Protein backbone atom coordinates (compact mmCIF):
# COMPACT_ATOMS: atom_id res chain seq x y z
CA UNK A 1 0.00 0.00 0.00
CA UNK A 2 1.66 3.17 -1.23
CA UNK A 3 0.35 5.68 1.35
CA UNK A 4 2.31 3.82 4.02
CA UNK A 5 5.65 4.34 2.39
CA UNK A 6 4.75 7.88 1.38
CA UNK A 7 3.85 8.67 4.97
CA UNK A 8 7.12 7.48 6.41
CA UNK A 9 9.03 9.48 3.83
CA UNK A 10 6.84 12.51 4.44
CA UNK A 11 7.59 12.77 8.10
CA UNK A 12 11.28 12.67 7.40
CA UNK A 13 10.77 15.48 4.88
CA UNK A 14 8.77 17.48 7.40
CA UNK A 15 11.59 17.02 9.86
CA UNK A 16 14.00 18.75 7.55
CA UNK A 17 11.60 21.57 6.78
CA UNK A 18 12.77 23.82 9.62
CA UNK A 19 10.58 25.39 12.27
CA UNK A 20 7.78 27.72 11.18
CA UNK A 21 6.54 30.51 13.48
CA UNK A 22 4.35 29.06 16.24
CA UNK A 23 1.17 30.92 15.23
CA UNK A 24 1.46 29.45 11.73
CA UNK A 25 1.11 25.95 13.18
CA UNK A 26 -2.40 26.29 14.63
CA UNK A 27 -4.00 25.13 11.37
CA UNK A 28 -1.90 21.98 11.11
CA UNK A 29 -2.39 21.11 14.77
CA UNK A 30 -6.14 21.77 14.52
CA UNK A 31 -6.38 19.66 11.38
CA UNK A 32 -4.61 16.67 12.85
CA UNK A 33 -6.66 16.86 16.05
CA UNK A 34 -9.78 16.99 13.88
CA UNK A 35 -8.55 13.91 12.06
CA UNK A 36 -8.20 12.08 15.37
CA UNK A 37 -11.71 13.18 16.40
CA UNK A 38 -12.98 11.55 13.22
CA UNK A 39 -11.11 8.39 14.22
CA UNK A 40 -12.85 8.49 17.62
CA UNK A 41 -16.36 9.12 16.23
CA UNK A 42 -16.14 6.22 13.81
CA UNK A 43 -14.58 3.93 16.36
CA UNK A 44 -17.40 4.97 18.70
CA UNK A 45 -20.08 3.73 16.30
CA UNK A 46 -18.38 0.33 16.24
CA UNK A 47 -17.69 0.25 19.99
CA UNK A 48 -21.32 1.01 20.88
CA UNK A 49 -22.53 -1.89 18.76
CA UNK A 50 -19.70 -4.22 19.68
CA UNK A 51 -20.35 -3.79 23.42
CA UNK A 52 -24.14 -4.08 23.10
CA UNK A 53 -24.87 -0.47 23.99
CA UNK A 54 -26.39 0.33 20.59
CA UNK A 55 -28.46 -1.84 18.31
CA UNK A 56 -26.51 -3.46 15.51
CA UNK A 57 -26.93 -1.69 12.16
CA UNK A 58 -24.99 -3.40 9.38
CA UNK A 59 -24.79 -0.37 7.09
CA UNK A 60 -23.75 2.07 9.79
CA UNK A 61 -21.13 -0.42 11.05
CA UNK A 62 -19.73 -0.98 7.56
CA UNK A 63 -19.61 2.75 6.87
CA UNK A 64 -17.75 3.43 10.13
CA UNK A 65 -15.19 0.70 9.48
CA UNK A 66 -14.68 1.84 5.87
CA UNK A 67 -14.19 5.40 7.12
CA UNK A 68 -11.50 4.22 9.51
CA UNK A 69 -9.72 2.45 6.66
CA UNK A 70 -9.87 5.60 4.56
CA UNK A 71 -8.91 7.98 7.38
CA UNK A 72 -5.92 5.93 8.49
CA UNK A 73 -4.70 5.83 4.89
CA UNK A 74 -4.70 9.63 4.47
CA UNK A 75 -1.46 11.21 3.42
CA UNK A 76 -0.05 12.98 6.48
CA UNK A 77 2.27 15.38 4.60
CA UNK A 78 0.66 18.61 5.77
CA UNK A 79 -0.05 17.69 9.39
CA UNK A 80 3.25 17.26 11.18
CA UNK A 81 5.54 20.25 10.51
CA UNK A 82 8.75 20.42 12.53
CA UNK A 83 8.35 22.53 15.65
CA UNK A 84 4.71 21.52 16.22
CA UNK A 85 5.44 19.22 19.17
CA UNK A 86 4.31 19.60 22.79
CA UNK A 87 7.78 20.74 23.83
CA UNK A 88 7.75 23.63 21.35
CA UNK A 89 4.18 24.97 21.39
CA UNK A 90 1.02 24.95 23.50
CA UNK A 91 -2.22 23.35 22.42
CA UNK A 92 -0.79 20.02 21.29
CA UNK A 93 -0.13 16.70 23.01
CA UNK A 94 2.08 15.40 20.18
CA UNK A 95 5.37 14.39 21.82
CA UNK A 96 8.74 15.35 20.33
CA UNK A 97 9.48 11.60 20.10
CA UNK A 98 7.37 11.53 16.90
CA UNK A 99 10.03 13.53 15.09
CA UNK A 100 12.80 11.36 16.54
CA UNK A 101 11.18 8.13 15.32
CA UNK A 102 9.18 8.97 12.19
CA UNK A 103 9.36 5.41 10.83
CA UNK A 104 7.98 3.91 14.00
CA UNK A 105 5.25 6.56 14.21
CA UNK A 106 4.29 5.77 10.62
CA UNK A 107 4.34 2.04 11.40
CA UNK A 108 1.83 2.63 14.20
CA UNK A 109 -0.53 4.31 11.74
CA UNK A 110 -0.03 1.39 9.34
CA UNK A 111 -0.95 -0.99 12.19
CA UNK A 112 -4.18 0.97 12.73
CA UNK A 113 -4.90 0.78 9.00
CA UNK A 114 -4.40 -3.02 9.02
CA UNK A 115 -6.71 -3.43 12.05
CA UNK A 116 -9.33 -1.21 10.38
CA UNK A 117 -9.17 -3.39 7.25
CA UNK A 118 -9.81 -6.43 9.49
CA UNK A 119 -12.76 -4.66 11.11
CA UNK A 120 -14.18 -3.69 7.71
CA UNK A 121 -14.03 -7.35 6.67
CA UNK A 122 -16.29 -8.48 9.55
CA UNK A 123 -18.40 -5.34 10.19
CA UNK A 124 -21.30 -6.83 8.19
CA UNK A 125 -21.33 -10.06 10.22
CA UNK A 126 -23.07 -8.80 13.35
CA UNK A 127 -22.35 -7.24 16.74
CA UNK A 128 -20.38 -10.20 18.07
CA UNK A 129 -18.00 -10.12 15.12
CA UNK A 130 -17.40 -6.42 15.78
CA UNK A 131 -16.94 -7.03 19.49
CA UNK A 132 -14.32 -9.65 18.72
CA UNK A 133 -12.21 -7.18 16.70
CA UNK A 134 -12.71 -4.17 18.96
CA UNK A 135 -9.78 -4.60 21.32
CA UNK A 136 -7.48 -5.38 18.40
CA UNK A 137 -8.52 -2.13 16.75
CA UNK A 138 -8.53 0.17 19.80
CA UNK A 139 -5.23 -1.42 20.88
CA UNK A 140 -3.56 0.11 17.82
CA UNK A 141 -4.83 3.55 18.87
CA UNK A 142 -3.45 3.03 22.39
CA UNK A 143 -0.12 1.72 21.14
CA UNK A 144 0.52 5.04 19.40
CA UNK A 145 -0.87 7.17 22.24
CA UNK A 146 1.35 5.24 24.66
CA UNK A 147 4.50 6.23 22.86
CA UNK A 148 3.67 9.53 21.18
CA UNK A 149 0.90 11.40 23.01
CA UNK A 150 1.25 13.18 26.34
CA UNK A 151 -1.56 12.94 28.90
CA UNK A 152 -3.62 16.17 29.21
Amino acid at each position, binding site marked *: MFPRIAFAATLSLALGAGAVAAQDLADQVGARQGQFKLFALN*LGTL*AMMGTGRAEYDARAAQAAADNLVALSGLDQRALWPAGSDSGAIDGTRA*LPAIWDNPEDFAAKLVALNAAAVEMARVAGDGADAIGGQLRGL*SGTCSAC*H*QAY*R*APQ
Partner: protein
Amino acid sequence: MRQRAPLVLAAVLAMLAGGLFWLSRPQPLPATAFAALAPGDPERGEAVFHATGCAGCHAAPGASGAARLVLSGGRAFATDFGTFRAPNISSDVAHGIGGWSLPELGNALLRGVAPDGRHYYPAFPYVAYARMALQDVADLHAFLSDLPADATPNEGHDLRFPFTFRRGIGLWKARYMDRGWAVAGDLPEPAARGRYLAEALAHCGECHTPRDRFGGLNHARWMAGAPNHSGDGRIPGITPAQLGWDAQDIVIYLSTGLTPDFDAAGGSMADVVDNLAGLAEAELEAIAAYLLILPDPRQD
Protein backbone atom coordinates in the same frame (compact mmCIF):
# COMPACT_ATOMS: atom_id res chain seq x y z
CA MET B 1 27.86 22.78 83.86
CA ARG B 2 29.52 24.69 81.10
CA GLN B 3 32.13 22.03 80.36
CA ARG B 4 29.52 19.34 80.29
CA ALA B 5 27.50 20.93 77.50
CA PRO B 6 29.57 19.35 74.71
CA LEU B 7 29.25 15.99 76.43
CA VAL B 8 25.50 16.32 76.70
CA LEU B 9 25.36 17.41 73.05
CA ALA B 10 27.46 14.42 72.04
CA ALA B 11 25.23 12.13 74.05
CA VAL B 12 22.10 13.63 72.49
CA LEU B 13 23.60 13.31 69.01
CA ALA B 14 24.59 9.72 69.69
CA MET B 15 21.09 8.95 70.89
CA LEU B 16 19.63 10.70 67.85
CA ALA B 17 21.91 8.77 65.52
CA GLY B 18 21.08 5.58 67.36
CA GLY B 19 17.41 6.43 67.11
CA LEU B 20 17.68 7.13 63.41
CA PHE B 21 19.69 3.97 62.95
CA TRP B 22 17.01 2.05 64.83
CA LEU B 23 14.20 3.78 62.92
CA SER B 24 15.84 3.04 59.59
CA ARG B 25 16.38 -0.67 60.28
CA PRO B 26 14.86 -3.14 57.80
CA GLN B 27 11.73 -4.77 59.22
CA PRO B 28 11.16 -8.07 57.44
CA LEU B 29 8.25 -10.35 58.23
CA PRO B 30 9.15 -13.49 60.20
CA ALA B 31 9.23 -16.68 58.09
CA THR B 32 6.43 -18.05 60.29
CA ALA B 33 4.08 -15.47 58.73
CA PHE B 34 4.10 -17.60 55.57
CA ALA B 35 3.98 -21.02 57.24
CA ALA B 36 0.21 -21.45 57.49
CA LEU B 37 -0.58 -20.61 53.84
CA ALA B 38 -2.02 -23.03 51.31
CA PRO B 39 0.52 -24.04 48.62
CA GLY B 40 0.71 -21.37 45.90
CA ASP B 41 -1.75 -21.83 43.04
CA PRO B 42 -0.16 -20.63 39.77
CA GLU B 43 -3.53 -20.16 38.08
CA ARG B 44 -4.73 -17.75 40.76
CA GLY B 45 -1.25 -16.27 40.71
CA GLU B 46 -1.67 -15.33 37.06
CA ALA B 47 -4.62 -13.07 37.92
CA VAL B 48 -2.55 -11.48 40.71
CA PHE B 49 0.30 -10.98 38.23
CA HIS B 50 -1.98 -9.13 35.80
CA ALA B 51 -3.60 -7.00 38.50
CA THR B 52 -0.27 -6.00 40.06
CA GLY B 53 1.32 -5.14 36.73
CA CYS B 54 4.79 -6.60 37.36
CA ALA B 55 5.32 -6.95 33.61
CA GLY B 56 4.84 -3.23 33.03
CA CYS B 57 8.17 -2.61 34.76
CA HIS B 58 10.04 -5.92 34.66
CA ALA B 59 9.45 -7.04 31.05
CA ALA B 60 11.90 -5.67 28.48
CA PRO B 61 11.02 -2.14 27.29
CA GLY B 62 8.45 -2.30 24.47
CA ALA B 63 7.73 -6.03 24.97
CA SER B 64 4.28 -7.19 23.90
CA GLY B 65 2.36 -10.45 23.83
CA ALA B 66 4.24 -13.49 25.16
CA ALA B 67 7.42 -11.40 25.56
CA ARG B 68 5.72 -9.68 28.51
CA LEU B 69 6.15 -12.92 30.43
CA VAL B 70 9.93 -12.74 30.10
CA LEU B 71 10.78 -10.61 33.13
CA SER B 72 14.34 -9.78 32.10
CA GLY B 73 14.17 -6.24 33.52
CA GLY B 74 15.91 -3.26 32.02
CA ARG B 75 13.14 -0.67 31.99
CA ALA B 76 14.50 2.70 33.13
CA PHE B 77 12.61 5.28 35.19
CA ALA B 78 14.01 8.80 35.25
CA THR B 79 13.12 10.60 38.51
CA ASP B 80 14.29 13.62 40.50
CA PHE B 81 16.52 11.27 42.47
CA GLY B 82 18.21 9.71 39.43
CA THR B 83 17.45 6.85 37.07
CA PHE B 84 16.13 3.55 38.42
CA ARG B 85 16.30 0.35 36.40
CA ALA B 86 13.91 -2.52 37.03
CA PRO B 87 15.99 -5.66 37.72
CA ASN B 88 15.69 -9.13 36.20
CA ILE B 89 13.01 -11.05 38.15
CA SER B 90 12.75 -13.99 35.75
CA SER B 91 13.11 -17.54 37.07
CA ASP B 92 16.83 -17.55 36.18
CA VAL B 93 18.70 -18.60 39.33
CA ALA B 94 21.87 -16.58 38.68
CA HIS B 95 20.45 -13.34 37.23
CA GLY B 96 16.79 -13.44 38.24
CA ILE B 97 14.93 -14.55 41.35
CA GLY B 98 14.64 -18.25 40.45
CA GLY B 99 16.20 -19.28 43.76
CA TRP B 100 14.01 -17.07 45.96
CA SER B 101 11.83 -18.60 48.67
CA LEU B 102 8.29 -17.39 49.31
CA PRO B 103 9.33 -15.38 52.41
CA GLU B 104 12.07 -13.70 50.36
CA LEU B 105 9.61 -12.62 47.67
CA GLY B 106 7.06 -11.72 50.35
CA ASN B 107 9.50 -9.43 52.14
CA ALA B 108 10.44 -7.70 48.90
CA LEU B 109 6.77 -7.02 48.06
CA LEU B 110 5.31 -6.37 51.51
CA ARG B 111 8.25 -4.75 53.31
CA GLY B 112 10.55 -3.52 50.55
CA VAL B 113 13.39 -5.55 52.07
CA ALA B 114 15.90 -7.66 50.06
CA PRO B 115 17.00 -11.17 51.08
CA ASP B 116 20.30 -9.68 52.33
CA GLY B 117 18.37 -7.17 54.47
CA ARG B 118 18.90 -4.04 52.35
CA HIS B 119 16.01 -1.65 51.66
CA TYR B 120 14.58 -1.37 48.19
CA TYR B 121 13.83 2.02 46.66
CA PRO B 122 10.13 2.88 46.53
CA ALA B 123 10.33 3.14 42.71
CA PHE B 124 9.42 -0.52 43.25
CA PRO B 125 5.81 0.14 44.39
CA TYR B 126 5.93 -1.94 47.59
CA VAL B 127 4.20 0.91 49.44
CA ALA B 128 1.06 -0.34 47.64
CA TYR B 129 1.94 -4.05 47.64
CA ALA B 130 2.44 -3.85 51.43
CA ARG B 131 -1.36 -4.19 51.64
CA MET B 132 -1.37 -7.49 49.70
CA ALA B 133 -2.90 -10.65 51.20
CA LEU B 134 -0.19 -13.23 51.97
CA GLN B 135 -2.05 -15.92 50.03
CA ASP B 136 -1.95 -13.72 46.91
CA VAL B 137 1.83 -13.46 47.35
CA ALA B 138 2.08 -17.25 47.61
CA ASP B 139 0.01 -17.70 44.43
CA LEU B 140 2.09 -15.07 42.63
CA HIS B 141 5.29 -16.82 43.75
CA ALA B 142 4.01 -20.07 42.21
CA PHE B 143 3.12 -18.31 38.95
CA LEU B 144 6.47 -16.47 38.69
CA SER B 145 8.38 -19.75 39.21
CA ASP B 146 6.72 -21.15 36.07
CA LEU B 147 7.73 -18.19 33.86
CA PRO B 148 10.74 -18.44 31.52
CA ALA B 149 14.29 -17.89 32.79
CA ASP B 150 16.36 -15.13 31.19
CA ALA B 151 20.07 -14.50 31.79
CA THR B 152 20.19 -10.72 31.23
CA PRO B 153 22.48 -9.23 33.92
CA ASN B 154 21.21 -6.28 35.99
CA GLU B 155 22.50 -2.85 35.02
CA GLY B 156 21.97 -1.15 38.36
CA HIS B 157 20.67 2.36 39.05
CA ASP B 158 22.15 5.77 38.34
CA LEU B 159 21.35 7.83 41.40
CA ARG B 160 22.42 11.19 42.77
CA PHE B 161 24.10 11.49 46.17
CA PRO B 162 22.75 11.03 48.90
CA PHE B 163 20.08 8.75 47.40
CA THR B 164 22.74 6.11 46.80
CA PHE B 165 22.52 5.20 50.51
CA ARG B 166 19.87 2.54 50.94
CA ARG B 167 19.85 2.76 54.73
CA GLY B 168 18.21 6.20 54.49
CA ILE B 169 15.21 4.61 52.79
CA GLY B 170 14.38 3.14 56.21
CA LEU B 171 13.57 6.64 57.48
CA TRP B 172 11.47 7.29 54.42
CA LYS B 173 9.58 4.07 55.08
CA ALA B 174 9.05 4.97 58.75
CA ARG B 175 7.38 8.16 57.53
CA TYR B 176 5.41 6.90 54.53
CA MET B 177 4.72 3.16 54.84
CA ASP B 178 2.12 1.13 56.76
CA ARG B 179 -0.60 3.68 56.50
CA GLY B 180 -3.40 1.15 56.10
CA TRP B 181 -6.02 1.89 53.47
CA ALA B 182 -5.93 5.31 51.85
CA VAL B 183 -9.72 5.23 51.82
CA ALA B 184 -10.19 4.07 55.40
CA GLY B 185 -13.08 2.35 57.10
CA ASP B 186 -15.46 -0.51 56.38
CA LEU B 187 -16.63 -0.46 52.80
CA PRO B 188 -19.55 -2.46 51.39
CA GLU B 189 -18.85 -5.00 48.64
CA PRO B 190 -17.93 -4.70 45.86
CA ALA B 191 -16.19 -1.41 46.78
CA ALA B 192 -14.10 -3.20 49.44
CA ARG B 193 -12.79 -5.68 46.86
CA GLY B 194 -12.22 -2.72 44.53
CA ARG B 195 -10.17 -0.97 47.21
CA TYR B 196 -7.97 -4.06 47.55
CA LEU B 197 -7.50 -4.30 43.78
CA ALA B 198 -6.84 -0.57 43.31
CA GLU B 199 -4.79 0.22 46.43
CA ALA B 200 -2.91 -3.03 47.07
CA LEU B 201 -2.52 -4.68 43.65
CA ALA B 202 -2.96 -2.27 40.73
CA HIS B 203 -1.37 0.66 42.64
CA CYS B 204 -3.50 3.27 40.83
CA GLY B 205 -2.46 5.83 43.45
CA GLU B 206 1.23 5.57 42.52
CA CYS B 207 0.44 7.50 39.32
CA HIS B 208 -2.86 9.28 40.02
CA THR B 209 -2.00 10.72 43.47
CA PRO B 210 0.33 13.72 43.83
CA ARG B 211 3.50 13.41 45.94
CA ASP B 212 5.25 15.71 48.39
CA ARG B 213 8.84 16.78 47.80
CA PHE B 214 10.22 13.63 49.38
CA GLY B 215 8.22 11.45 47.04
CA GLY B 216 5.59 10.41 49.59
CA LEU B 217 1.99 10.12 48.39
CA ASN B 218 -0.31 12.95 49.53
CA HIS B 219 -3.23 11.02 51.01
CA ALA B 220 -5.32 14.18 51.35
CA ARG B 221 -5.42 14.40 47.56
CA TRP B 222 -5.84 10.68 46.89
CA MET B 223 -6.32 10.03 43.13
CA ALA B 224 -6.73 13.76 42.51
CA GLY B 225 -4.25 13.80 39.60
CA ALA B 226 -0.51 14.49 39.52
CA PRO B 227 2.33 15.71 37.32
CA ASN B 228 3.43 12.98 34.92
CA HIS B 229 6.81 11.90 36.30
CA SER B 230 7.52 9.83 33.19
CA GLY B 231 7.26 12.79 30.81
CA ASP B 232 5.10 15.71 29.61
CA GLY B 233 1.60 16.56 30.70
CA ARG B 234 -0.50 15.73 33.76
CA ILE B 235 -1.95 12.44 34.92
CA PRO B 236 -5.69 13.08 35.26
CA GLY B 237 -7.61 12.98 38.54
CA ILE B 238 -10.02 10.04 38.73
CA THR B 239 -12.25 10.96 41.67
CA PRO B 240 -15.93 11.01 40.65
CA ALA B 241 -16.01 14.81 40.92
CA GLN B 242 -13.22 15.04 38.34
CA LEU B 243 -14.03 12.10 36.12
CA GLY B 244 -17.81 12.34 35.83
CA TRP B 245 -18.13 8.74 34.52
CA ASP B 246 -20.57 6.04 35.63
CA ALA B 247 -19.60 2.47 36.57
CA GLN B 248 -20.12 1.14 33.06
CA ASP B 249 -17.95 3.90 31.57
CA ILE B 250 -15.15 2.92 33.97
CA VAL B 251 -15.44 -0.82 33.27
CA ILE B 252 -15.34 -0.22 29.51
CA TYR B 253 -12.31 2.05 29.86
CA LEU B 254 -10.40 -0.44 32.01
CA SER B 255 -11.19 -3.36 29.66
CA THR B 256 -10.89 -1.66 26.25
CA GLY B 257 -9.02 1.59 26.91
CA LEU B 258 -11.89 3.58 25.38
CA THR B 259 -13.26 6.70 27.11
CA PRO B 260 -16.96 7.68 26.84
CA ASP B 261 -15.82 9.94 23.94
CA PHE B 262 -14.08 6.95 22.34
CA ASP B 263 -10.65 8.36 22.82
CA ALA B 264 -8.11 5.57 23.44
CA ALA B 265 -5.97 5.37 26.59
CA GLY B 266 -2.35 6.39 26.11
CA GLY B 267 0.80 7.07 28.09
CA SER B 268 1.54 4.75 30.98
CA MET B 269 -2.20 3.93 31.27
CA ALA B 270 -2.06 1.83 28.08
CA ASP B 271 -0.03 -0.80 29.95
CA VAL B 272 -2.44 -0.75 32.88
CA VAL B 273 -5.35 -1.43 30.51
CA ASP B 274 -3.39 -4.27 28.88
CA ASN B 275 -2.98 -5.82 32.32
CA LEU B 276 -6.52 -5.23 33.58
CA ALA B 277 -8.10 -6.48 30.35
CA GLY B 278 -7.07 -9.96 31.56
CA LEU B 279 -9.20 -9.73 34.74
CA ALA B 280 -12.77 -10.98 35.25
CA GLU B 281 -15.45 -8.36 34.61
CA ALA B 282 -16.59 -8.56 38.26
CA GLU B 283 -13.11 -7.40 39.33
CA LEU B 284 -13.34 -4.35 37.06
CA GLU B 285 -16.84 -3.63 38.40
CA ALA B 286 -15.34 -3.71 41.89
CA ILE B 287 -12.67 -1.18 40.91
CA ALA B 288 -15.40 1.02 39.41
CA ALA B 289 -17.44 0.82 42.65
CA TYR B 290 -14.34 1.90 44.58
CA LEU B 291 -13.53 4.83 42.26
CA LEU B 292 -17.12 6.05 42.62
CA ILE B 293 -16.80 6.44 46.41
CA LEU B 294 -13.48 8.36 46.36
CA PRO B 295 -13.74 11.62 48.32
CA ASP B 296 -13.94 14.90 46.41
CA PRO B 297 -10.43 16.43 46.62
CA ARG B 298 -11.81 19.93 46.12
CA GLN B 299 -13.52 19.83 49.51
CA ASP B 300 -10.50 20.46 51.72
